[in-house]
């Protein structure tokens, strides 16, 4: 059950990072969200065998990481978590696709290996962008930004509530799981006979908590409508940020810089 503590810790830590002060932290959240979306679309639009051409894109997460003064090791560890998933997905490619399509000196590389690696690289890039986005913006701000960009209010409020209570309920769930574990003498999972009531209990408590929160909201004059929060201004700096990065992404997408660079270096 220590996994629970680890999970919560990830949440808390990313959230605390977002409370730092820096130029990127101060940017309008909408600017960061939009830029990240452009980034992701550009990255995933690469063909299946492209590898080198994607590498310049790592500039974006690295730059934000640096400007936002985030702990590189921690972010890297979080990003690397996706590798097993990506590998699992790409694992079959080398089995099915054995066409040699790349010659690396004497070494012939199968298309499958290339596309597998390509999957891993794009997974890393997109994951890094998402995590860095959270770390320099903060989840609540992302929700507000999305709402300003047209997401329905109900959904935005739902996200905020969910986020708020993940901490409380995972904690409660953790304690229940702990109590069970301590009395179960080493049996790992549990039979359905125990699982149902246990989660049922947790559900009842969840429900009662929701009732109490609702009471607290009513007590403070809530009439069914969530009021708009303060809106930040989308300044010239924000526009510049979005346009600048987007232009760079499109350029990176259209021209294979590493290839050109390599050819230049090798003099071919």
């Amino acid at each position, binding site marked *: 059950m220590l996994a629970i503590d680890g999970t919560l810790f990830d949440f808390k830590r990313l959230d605390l990072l977002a409370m730092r002060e820096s130029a990127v932290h101060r940017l309008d959240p909408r600017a960061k969200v939009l830029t990240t979306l452009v980034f992701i679309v550009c990255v995933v*639009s690469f063909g299946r065998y492209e590898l*080198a051409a994607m590498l310049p894109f790592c500039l974006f997460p690295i730059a934000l*990481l640096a400007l936002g003064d985030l702990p590189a090791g921690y972010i890297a560890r979080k990003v690397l978590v996706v590798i097993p998933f990506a590998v699992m997905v790409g694992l079959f490619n080398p089995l099915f696709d*054995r066409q040699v399509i790349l010659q690396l000196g004497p070494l012939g590389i199968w298309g499958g290996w290339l596309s597998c690696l390509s999957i891993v690289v794009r997974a890393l890039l997109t994951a890094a962008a998402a995590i860095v*986005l959270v770390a320099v913006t903060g989840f609540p701000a992302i929700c507000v930004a999305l709402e300003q960009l047209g997401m329905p209010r109900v959904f935005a409020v739902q996200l905020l509530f969910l986020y708020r209570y993940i901490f409380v309920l995972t904690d409660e769930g953790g304690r229940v799981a702990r109590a069970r574990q301590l009395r179960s003498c080493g049996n790992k999972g549990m039979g359905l006979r125990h699982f149902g009531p246990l*989660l049922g209990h947790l559900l*009842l408590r969840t*429900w009662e908590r929701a009732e109490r*929160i609702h009471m607290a909201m009513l007590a403070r004059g809530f009439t069914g409508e969530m009021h708009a929060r303060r809106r930040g201004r989308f300044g010239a700096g924000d526009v510049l940020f979005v346009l600048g990065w987007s232009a760079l992404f499109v350029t990176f997408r259209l021209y294979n810089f590493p290839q050109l*660079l390599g050819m230049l270096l090798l003099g071919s």
Partner: protein
Amino acid sequence: MHMADALLSPAVGGAMLAATAGTIAWCSSRVPRDLDEYKVPLMGVLGAFVFAAQMINFAIPGTGSSGHIGGGLLLAILLGPHAAFLTIASVLFIQALFFADGGLLALGCNIFNLGFFQTFIAYPLIYRRLAGRQPRQSRLVLAAIVAGVVGLQLAAFAVVLETTASGISALPFKAFVLLMQPIHLAIGVIEGLATAAIIAFVHRARPELVESTLAGRPLGSLPIRGMLAAFALAAVLLGGVVSWFASTQPDGLEWAIAKVTGDTELPAPAHPLHHTLAAIQEKLAIFPGDTGQSGSPAPDNPAGRIDNGLPGLIGGLVTLATAVLTGLLLRSCARRA
């Protein structure tokens, strides 16, 4: 079950994102109407409950391994389909952002796969029909299992379709179906059993919680309902027939096994469906794969060119180093500022 960005082409990812966004907008407009404002905290807290519940494992009988609930069906039973869809969507959104579980582009696919089928098909068309108003234990369990299985089978099949249409993974359609459907059959049964156990417990402890939503109107007015029913039927048939077909045609399996055991025979041409879909993708892709400048071959005619990869390798390494250096530079600037 969570798909990653890396598996999807922008066209497929984008299309599913749009479909999901539409569903979210539609649900958002319905939720305040059919539910009182009390649902605001309830949805949020139940979403958090699903998070917490996913951390508690139970033993999967006879396997020695353990699993946890997904939660879509449970939420639909407790909240009704619209609110449940929003709740599941919010849970997946946070998982994508914080755990890189799936990605932002794949979010549309994941929400649709794990949310739509459970809340808008399995729950209203199967669970409610089978369970009725005041279900006895056995009917509840049956309804939950069937709903769980159908929901997950549809979801698994959707994953296959989306992946194949994107053309990033090389796994042939048939082998993929063969891989996905049976695994998710087992998971669906478990999800159904667990959901039934939880609902049965809550029913005993606080019957009014479950009954109030059961009594509520599940889906509003007609056209959508009819549409959904037709769609569901088609999907069930398709999924069922294809997976049955795949499993009675051992050649697909043998072929896959032969590959796995290292038979050196050249790969059979990809499945025709794959070709068609890949062609569609080619047209839809924002940046088609064969733009001349990109220096790599187009996905579907790899045999045509054999590149010399050396410049790419060296250039790539230099690029990486440059990026990292830039980062270090920026950081020291930022710190001094």
